[in-house]
């Protein structure tokens, strides 16, 4: 039914494809990072191991590729919340190799998720921490992935005055607006799975150039669901719609949101929840939009891969599901 592409070693815990689907990075429980490359362009099926090395003490739980305009680089997030940024580079007449160029996060200040976005022609890295804080870093030199500057630090709350106890977050999910990749200001989306209800709901953050700060411009939760823990968020590519489409997964199911492009007088973007879908029982692990932004693929605790689409009348439904069998 499906074509096998690759077999990975025992203990592999996560994997991630690069922008063109020609390189695969895989992380293991013992902290090993492996890189596999396509041998030749027309066949994506034949991959060979080009790098394998231990980069972390702990289990690698997530790998994120840096946008290709900044080279071949990955961020590996370990289970103890440390992020290592590795880059494939030739330095000082040494052969091409993967090198760690930056590490951050600690067991006391764990990083839960990292995503990259290009904004105003510079690379931004957004990290979500276990205490409910977000940090936005900016790359100073486009050719050096070592030099990051902290641009902003804030919590995922709408009202900055609200106070709450010490937050404990289990997971976080960040998704950049995939369309902006040039000179415009970019925006991103973040939701937490925490014990603090104010932090949880998915919010859209946009950089306010005039005041040089990040502002929440939309909250993707209906009033009665605002405290719900968010498992995953995904911003759909927009190839020409007059609104954005965003998927948010909570324990109540998948919600599909329309996000307007024109802010109202408060600077907020209009939002509308167009569908609530149930499918995965329990946790949703990952949500991915296809390149047209018309089909959403999801995985979750039930072990299934599910595909979702909207029909001609705008009604979202499950189009198909895949069940792993041995």
């Amino acid at each position, binding site marked *: 039914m499906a*074509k096998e592409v690759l077999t990975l070693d025992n203990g592999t815990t996560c994997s991630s494809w690069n922008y063109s689907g020609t390189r695969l990075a895989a992380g293991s429980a013992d902290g090993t990072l492996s890189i596999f490359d396509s041998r030749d362009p027309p066949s994506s099926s034949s991959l060979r191991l080009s790098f394998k090395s231990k980069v972390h003490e702990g289990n690698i739980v997530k790998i994120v590729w840096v946008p290709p305009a900044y080279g071949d680089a990955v961020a590996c997030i370990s289970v103890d919340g440390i992020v290592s940024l590795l880059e494939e580079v030739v330095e000082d007449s040494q052969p091409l190799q993967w090198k760690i160029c930056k590490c951050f996060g600690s067991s006391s200040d764990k990083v839960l998720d990292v995503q990259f976005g290009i904004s105003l022609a510079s690379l931004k890295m957004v990290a979500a921490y276990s205490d409910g804080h977000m940090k936005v870093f900016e790359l100073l030199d486009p050719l050096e992935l070592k030099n990051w500057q902290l641009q902003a630090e804030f919590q995922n709350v709408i009202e900055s005055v609200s106070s709450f106890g010490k937050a404990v977050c289990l997971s976080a999910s960040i998704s950049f607006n995939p369309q902006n990749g040039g000179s415009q200001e970019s925006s991103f989306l973040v939701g937490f799975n925490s014990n603090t209800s104010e932090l949880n709901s998915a919010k859209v953050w946009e950089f306010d150039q005039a005041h040089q700060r990040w502002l929440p411009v939309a909250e993707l939760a209906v009033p009665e669901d605002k405290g719900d823990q968010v498992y995953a968020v995904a911003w759909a590519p927009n190839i020409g719609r007059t609104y954005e489409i965003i998927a948010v997964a909570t324990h109540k199911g998948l919600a599909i949101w329309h996000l307007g492009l024109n802010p109202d007088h408060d600077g907020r973007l209009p939002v509308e929840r167009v569908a609530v879908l149930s499918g995965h029982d329990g946790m949703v692990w990952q949500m*991915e939009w296809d390149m047209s932004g018309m089909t959403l693929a999801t995985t979750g605790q039930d072990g299934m891969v599910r595909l979702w689409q909207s029909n001609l009348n705008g009604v979202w439904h499950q189009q198909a599901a895949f069940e792993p069998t041995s």
Partner: protein
Amino acid sequence: MPSDTVGNGVLVPFSGEGSDSVAVYPLNHGLSLPISRVAISWSRGNSLRVSLFAEPSATSPDSQASGAKVVEVKLSGEDPEISDSNWRRIAYGSVTPFALLQSRRSSLAALSKSPSPYHVDWWEHVLEYSKDIASLLGGPKLSPGPIIEDPNAIATKCEEPTCLKAAWELLEMFYVDKRSQAWLPERLVDWLADFDSLFTSTHETIHGKLVNFQKELVNIQVIEDDPRYWEVMSSALSVGWLDIVVKMLRLHGSYQLDQLSSRERENGLVEVVAVLISKMPRLRPESAVENLGECFKSKPDFIKAWEKWRSQITKLDCSPFWIQCDNQQTCDGLRNLLQIMLGNTESLCTATCHWIELYVSHFLYIRPFTTGIESMYNLAQKCMQLKPPSSIHKLTGLMIGILGENTEVVLAECSREFGPWMVAHAVELLTAGSEQAEVLLHDEHYNLGGISIVELHRLAYAQVLSSHALTWQIAPIYLTSCMKQGMGLLENLLYRQSVQHNDTLLKNIEICRLYELDHISSKIMKVAGVFHWKHGRKGAGVFWLQQAQDASCLGRIALQLFDAVGKSISDESFKQWEGIIELLGSESKPAGGLEFLHKYRDFKKSLQQVSGGKSTEAARQAVGSLILLMKNPSTPPRFWLPLLYDSLKLLNWKDCSLLTESETNLLLNKLQELSLARLRPHFTEPSLPPEALSSVRLALATNLGRAILDE
């Protein structure tokens, strides 16, 4: 892993209407341990990559057992009836007709300046397009249905027809070809003759009967005594395969020379029936060469001929010759043929197998004067009741949709049964003549993000093309015909092509140039530039970054070069850097002070000469270069201090003062400016020892004193 690839991986119809129950497909991975985690990633187009991670085996963590599988699932493939390579042939072949039709539409629209480009003769263009496409779906029609050449060969096997072609021709006949509207039933007769064999896989058909009978033919001694002989003939006659029936009648034993005299009367009857069959009037412009029957273009002539023919049959049916014929089998068989020609419902029903065959027989013998699509739907319903199908064949679903004049059903059937290629190309046929279909299919839907159904299906087809390395290059042709979202998807598609291989990269850039996607090509070139730069191919890196006009990266490279040129002046690698400086400098608009780098290189060279010997002349030359550099506005301020620091030896020249008073003042002024420039944001401190500034200042001050004294 046993990867049981089904066909070409057809799994999910892309955009059929959602059914109530969700189809669940198995995803074979072959891992022995239970799955603990699944990761997904979309590749280009419709291919989804799924990583399945097994629970780590606690017993032996280092065991050789594989711990994860990565599989690729291609969604919404095409009709499995056709092989992958054949699909690609069709995909490539349909590009030209499609593009031609689009360009004709836009030029017509430009001419008429009306919102609807549909000209009265528009259908003729669509017909040409339709014929071009149809020719891809199968070779030239060989012989319509079974024929007899060799008297023993009743049905010859010609090129295997495909359902795809049958469906395409059905659409063409009902939606595009306006000339055939007057003789639609006859076209259906022809269509069935071409494609009756397609139903054989699931149903009993007349074609199947003929093929079986032909296999038996060699074993039959006296053909007219075999009931199957008469049965097969009545079946063939019922669907209008006149030539076959006539040829089969001539196989009758009474034609044999040794029997002619004893069976004269019987033979006469057989011949009369054969002649009547061959004289059957048909309402159609021209018959295919080998088809028998007399063709009439005008309806009144046809009606007249038909009535005359019918009266001849009735007369024969009532004639006394039948009593004089000794062979009962022949009599019964021939009279049954007459009943079919007289339109006896019962005989027709017995003679035909599939409801479509019965349907066609109705047009031939019961309702010969039907024209137009009206009442055709009701008749189809009636035939289906008389011969209820055991299962729905994909062509009958389509036919019901067409006869019911329901464009949405037709589209859904095309999509479900034949895949995205069919829908993307068939919409042109559906909209060829119908205002209503035109409105339905070109109306923009907010729920689809403001695109029309036509565009949606083109995008879906382009996604399918994009997911294969051998077809993605033709996706842009379909995407650029999508007014609203095609370019957006094209940008995403181009951006996801790997830049590692130069030929792919050049192809990408060419596509960008063709569709004026400059911002995408500069993005791609930047990715390529950074890729090469980081992978140690500095020249290629600089070249692509220059093509991308990425000033910020080039500026950074210039900085790195500055350091490198400064550090390694005596090294062999200086030559390599020199090459890049040449490359960087070749642009008419130097980026990030590259012009300066040339001068800096010259300065460094002369400095090198000075450091070797003690020649005052060489030192004077170096000072000349330094002054030129400091005077040049293209020299970035951040380089001023390093330049002066490098020149300390010149400033403190033992023998004499090398700088004049005014030159020294110029340098001092630059230092003053530098302290102001430092206050501005974005000023980068050069990496120099902390005492650099004070030592330069001291040297300049000393030099100023000496210069004044000298003068």
